[in-house]
């Protein structure tokens, strides 16, 4: 029989080592589908690494990819800490992007130290509102937020499509459903000349540090953790669970919205329905790999981004389906779940037959 015994105090090696190990195992497991697809495995891994880190250009691409992942990862991490199961970061991202485009494509203009905050605030507010609705439904009426936030992703994407064929359509786009470009004063400046990586990365890193401080060092952060660990006990000790949940929703939705702003204002320059290849969902993986730690999110977003960029360039080079990247990310999530279990429990194998 297998027995699980809780570990009283898992050491730091276990806590930080297990996610790294889980990510490594996921990468190694990818050798199976690679082999089945007939790819040269060693060469494929080499191409994957050089695809993400081989040149300034590829590293810039990787960091560009990591930027929205840090933000959606933070969005999932803060929500999951309070046991608010926000699966709707994808929709919140698109709402944020749409709000940024609505105010940032020429309706108003000003110097960039005005316009950049304006698009950020608009996008974060839109993302936050998208999650506050389902959160109120959860706290007031007991409607499961998992389903509502998920379904809202589909509704938002259709709404974006509708707006891109209507009010937000760029008349110069030759019929393509895309928005007018973000004006120069609202665009996120690039960090490196002739590279795509932009100040969105700095904003994301600052957000991670700020969120870490917020969670660890403020009363609100304490209340969020308390509600997440035991809502009934938190309520008993005088914490307003509804208020805390709404605060979490505003933060989580706002961060996901910010990811959308960063994508339209920094990476893409305009809004289209293929703005995000699933950053909202990948954010869940990022958050879990980071064990919901805001600083850990930075590391795990870099990992997930390098898998995406590396596997993409590898698949182009040797003709393996680029869905391999999604496969690795999914396996990393499941591995880290099991890893999380093994940090909390010691596994014992009892040999009953030998004893009896």
């Amino acid at each position, binding site marked *: 029989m297998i027995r699980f015994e809780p570990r009283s105090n898992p050491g730091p090696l276990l806590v930080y080592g297990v996610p790294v190990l889980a990510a490594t195992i996921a990468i190694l497991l990818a050798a199976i589908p690679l082999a089945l697809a007939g790819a040269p495995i060693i060469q494929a891994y080499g191409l994957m690494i050089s695809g993400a880190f081989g040149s300034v250009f590829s590293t810039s691409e990787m960091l560009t990819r990591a930027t929205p992942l840090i933000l959606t990862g933070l969005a999932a991490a803060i929500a999951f800490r309070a046991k608010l199961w926000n699966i709707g970061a994808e929709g919140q991202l698109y709402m944020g992007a749409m709000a940024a485009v609505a105010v940032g494509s020429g309706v108003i203009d000003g110097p960039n130290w005005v316009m950049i905050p304006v698009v950020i605030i608009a996008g974060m507010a839109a993302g936050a509102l998208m999650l506050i609705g389902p959160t109120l439904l959860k706290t007031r009426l007991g409607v499961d937020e998992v389903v509502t936030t*998920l379904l809202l992703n589909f509704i938002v994407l259709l709404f974006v499509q509708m707006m891109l*064929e209507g009010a937000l359509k760029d008349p110069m786009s030759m019929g393509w459903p895309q928005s007018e470009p973000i004006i120069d004063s609202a665009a996120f400046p690039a960090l490196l000349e002739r590279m795509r990586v932009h100040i969105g990365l700095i904003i994301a890193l600052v957000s991670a540090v700020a969120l870490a401080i917020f969670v660890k060092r403020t009363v609100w952060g304490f209340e969020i953790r308390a509600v997440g660990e035991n809502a009934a006990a938190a309520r008993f000790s005088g914490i307003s669970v509804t208020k805390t949940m709404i605060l979490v929703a505003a933060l989580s939705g706002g961060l996901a919205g910010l990811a959308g702003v960063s994508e339209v204002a920094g990476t893409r320059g305009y809004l289209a329905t293929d703005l995000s290849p699933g950053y909202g969902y990948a954010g869940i993986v990022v958050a879990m790999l980071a064990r919901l730690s805001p600083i850990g999110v930075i590391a795990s977003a870099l990992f997930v981004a390098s898998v995406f960029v590396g596997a993409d360039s590898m698949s182009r080079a040797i*003709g393996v389906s680029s869905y391999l990247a999604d496969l690795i990310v999914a396996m990393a999530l499941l591995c880290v779940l099991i890893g999380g279990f093994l940090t909390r429990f010691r596994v014992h194998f009892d040999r009953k037959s030998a004893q009896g």
Partner: protein
Amino acid sequence: MEIIDILLAASFWEAAIRIATPLIFGVLGALICERAGVLNLGIEGIFTAGAMAGWMAVWLGAGLWGGVLVAALAGGFFGLIHAILTVPLGLSQHVSGIGVTLLATSLSYFTYRTALPDVSSPPRIEPFRPLDIPFLSDLPFIGQALFSQTAMTMLALVLVLVTGWVLYRTPLGLAIRAVGDNPSSVEAQGLSVYGLRIGAVVVGSSLMALGGAFLTMSAFDAFFFGMINGRGWVCIALTVFASWRPGKALIGALLFGAFDAFQVRLQTEVGAFLPSQVFLMMPYILSIIALIVVARKADYPKALLVPWFKGQR
């Protein structure tokens, strides 16, 4: 065409039942998992896996029912992963489910792309044909609406009865319902909580996969990327709407199918005034409204989402 004319046409009800079929499989599957206390958010991915596996088996030369079996096995496989993570290990059902969805979807897409690297138009199979039952199919109205469906629709309808019978009329069903409400009482009777829960999740996931297989093997004749398009999530909403009862699940799926068929027809009438996206949003909006309406009185299985460990009181 008037609204009444739409509702009175047999072709409308035929479409409604056809649209409802994958949802019936999905809701039954989700309902069985949740009755045993396990939320299965792997459903969207399991739908994809069932659609891909069933289609590919037939494309590789298996018979249609062979494809159905392969789809069920694929669903059971992903269900087993979810069950191991959530039942004996007691990990977060939400996160594990999302993980299974990501895994099943990416594995299906990867397999499809690896088998068919450079096809632009997906290859077609010969799908299930509408049945031609002597006498029944010739009945006016009902004949076309109900008895000219494919065998998989009939299977879905039969499974509603079977699931209801098992859940409410057999000791096994009693044990499954008990394990979702009060697992300790089940252990006290000497039954295996783990065994019941794992079994329910595997069987439920197999049913979900049949919903996917219906899409590629009955409704369409090919596999497309993104073809599941949220149907799995809609099933999760419908499960709450159905208050975990097979009969209500059937009604919910049929209402949903009727609404979807109705909006397609309405669209051709008033499409000029409203953007097509408004119509496409309706199923999701409807799901949310359904959740809000029933939320207050929703009678969740009491042990849903709550992990249980051996020897626990």
